[in-house]
C-alpha cells in the first residue's frame, strides 16, 4: 500500500538558515501522526512544502502518490490544511467562505457536506455571520471546516487548538478521531503534548530542521524515559547514591526520580533502607510525552 505522505531527502533553506535538513519520512494511510518540535524547528515549513505553499530546495514529496511539484493538482486535491495563523476573508459569511473553498477545489454542489461539517463544528447557528463577527475560537472552527470541505484523504492540522476553549477542543478531537476512524490520514502539530500523546499512534520530532526522533508513541515513551518515582521521606535527606536519579529538586519535600525501568524501584528502596530512612509517601508513574520531548530536545 502506498504511503499517504512520502518525503525523501527534503531540504530547505531561507538564506543562511537551514529550515529543513535531509528529511525522510513515510506516513502510512490512516495513521494519526504527530509532528512535534519547538518553535522554528521546521514543522510549518515542512507542511508548507507538502501543501504547495513553499518549494523544497532538494528532495521529493508525494501525497497519496502525487508528487507535490510535478502533480500538484492531484496532491493538493488530496490534502486539507488547517493553518496555524487565524486567517479569514472579512468580506464574507461563514457559509460563503465554505462554499468558495469548496468551489476552488472543483466542487459545485457540496452543500450537504458543508452543512454536516458546520453542524459537527457547531457552526450552524453562525452560518450567516460575517467572519469579522466571530470570536477567535469560532474563526478557528471555520479554518478547520475549510480544510475538510473537499473531504481530503490527508488532513494536516497545524496547531489547531491554539487559543481554543476546552469545549471546542474536545469536540474537535472527537470529530477528527471519527475522520481518522473513517480512514483519513491525520498529521498534527501541536504544543499541547498531552493531545499528541492521547491521539497519535506515531510521533516525529524536529529539531533545527532535522528529524531527531521517529517512532510509535508507545516506543518513544518506553525507550526515551523510564518510570517516574515520586517519593517523600519521613525524615532526613535522600542518600547521596540516589542523587544522579533525581530529576527535580524537592520543593515540598518530594523528590522526583527518573528510573531506567520499574525493576530499579527495588534498588532505590534498598538504598533508603540501608541508610535507616523510611518512606512517607511514594507514587510510581508512567512518563509522558512532554518528558520524552524535553529529553530529546535537550540532547546535543
Amino acid at each position, binding site marked *: 500500500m502506498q504511503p499517504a505522505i512520502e518525503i525523501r531527502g527534503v531540504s530547505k533553506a*531561507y538564506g543562511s538558515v537551514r529550515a529543513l535538513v535531509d528529511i525522510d519520512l513515510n506516513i502510512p494511510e490512516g495513521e494519526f501522526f504527530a509532528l512535534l518540535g519547538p518553535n522554528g524547528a521546521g514543522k510549518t515549513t515542512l507542511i*508548507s512544502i507538502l*501543501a*504547495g*505553499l*513553499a*518549494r523544497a530546495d532538494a528532495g521529493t514529496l508525494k501525497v497519496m502518490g502525487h508528487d507535490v511539484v510535478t502533480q*500538484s*493538482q*492531484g496532491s*493538493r*486535491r488530496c*490534502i486539507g*490544511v488547517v*493553518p496555524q*495563523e487565524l*486567517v*479569514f*476573508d*472579512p*468580506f*464574507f459569511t461563514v457559509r*460563503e467562505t465554505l*462554499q*468558495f*473553498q*469548496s*468551489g*476552488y*477545489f*472543483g*466542487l*459545485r454542489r*457540496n452543500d450537504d457536506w458543508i452543512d454536516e461539517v458546520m453542524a459537527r463544528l457547531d457552526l450552524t447557528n453562525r452560518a450567516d455571520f460575517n467572519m469579522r463577527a466571530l470570536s477567535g475560537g469560532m474563526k478557528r472552527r471555520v479554518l478547520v471546516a*475549510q480544510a475538510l470541505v*473537499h*473531504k481530503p484523504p490527508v488532513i494536516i492540522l497545524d496547531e489547531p487548538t491554539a487559543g481554543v476553549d476546552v469545549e471546542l477542543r474536545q469536540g474537535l478531537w472527537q470529530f477528527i478521531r471519527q475522520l481518522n476512524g473513517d480512514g483519513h490520514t491525520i498529521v498534527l502539530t501541536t504544543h499541547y503534548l498531552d493531545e499528541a500523546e492521547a491521539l497519535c499512534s506515531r510521533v516525529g520530532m524536529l529539531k533545527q530542521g532535522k528529524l531527531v526522533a521517529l517512532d510509535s508513541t508507545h516506543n518513544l515513551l518506553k525507550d526515551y524515559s523510564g518510570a517516574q518515582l515520586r517519593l517523600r521521606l519521613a525524615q532526613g535527606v535522600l542518600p547521596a547514591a540516589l542523587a544522579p536519579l533525581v530529576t527535580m529538586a524537592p520543593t515540598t519535600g518530594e523528590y522526583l526520580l527518573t528510573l531506567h525501568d520499574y525493576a530499579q524501584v527495588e534498588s532505590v528502596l534498598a538504598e533508603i533502607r540501608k541508610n535507616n530512612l523510611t518512606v512517607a509517601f511514594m507514587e510510581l508513574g508512567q512518563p509522558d510525552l512532554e518528558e520524552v520531548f524535553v529529553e530529546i530536545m535537550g540532547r546535543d
Partner: protein
Amino acid sequence: MHKFAPMAGFSTLFRKEIMRFWKVSFQTVLAPVLTALLYLLIFSHVLEDHVQVYPGVRYTAFLVPGLAMMSLLQNSFANSSSSLIQSKITGNIIFVLLPPLSHFEFFAAYVLACVVRGVMVGFGVFAVTALFVPVPVQNPLWVASFALLGSALLGTLGIIAGIWAEKFDQLAAFQNFIIVPLTFLSGVFYSMHSLPPFWQEVSRFNPFFYMIDGFRYGFFGVSDVSPKLSFVIVGGCLLALSFATLSLLKRGYKLRH
C-alpha cells in the same frame, strides 16, 4: 469520493472577486462615478467656453469618454491589486493557493472580475455624465473593444502590482507614480495635437494614450491616431503583460516561497 467539476475553481474565484467588490459597491463603484462627475462639472465650468478640441464637439462632451475610460482603467487596476495585497497582508491568500487552481484559472478569474468592475464604473460614469451633456456613440464596437482591452490590461497590471507589493505603501507608490501619471498624461483632458511636438512624441510611448484615443474614436469618429493602430498596440501590450503575469503566477513569484 467527490466528483470534481472542470472550471469550477475558475468560476468560483471569479464569483468571489465580483462579490468582494460588490459588497462594498458604494466605495468601489459609486464613489469613482461621483469623482468623475466632479471632474466633469469643474473642468467643463472652467474650460467649456475656452477650449474646443475637435470641430463641432463641445469640450464637456470631449471630456466624457476620457473620464469614463480613466475611471474604468483606474478601477480595473484597483480591483485586482487591492484584492491581492489585502489577501497577502491578512494571510487569506492561502485559501486560493492551497486548492488545485491552475495559474490560468487564477489569472482569468482576477482579470475578468477587473473587467466587470471597470466596465461597470465606466458605464456608470458615462450614464451619469450623459445627464449633463449629450455624447454621440458613433461606433459602439470600438467603444466596447477598448473598454474590454483597457480593463483587462489594467487588471493584469493590477495582478503584477498586487503580487509584487509587500506593503500597502508599495502598492500606493505603484499607483501614484505609474498608473495615475500615465492616465492623466494620456489625453483624458486634451488632444495630443494640442501638445508641443516633443510631448506629442513622448505621448506615443504611453499605452494609456492609445486606450483613451481609441475609446474616444468610438464616440466621435475622430481620433489623434488610427483606432486600428491603437487596437494593435493595446492588444499587443495586453498579450505581453498577460504572458508576463502568467509566467510570474506559474513560478509562484512572491506567492509560493
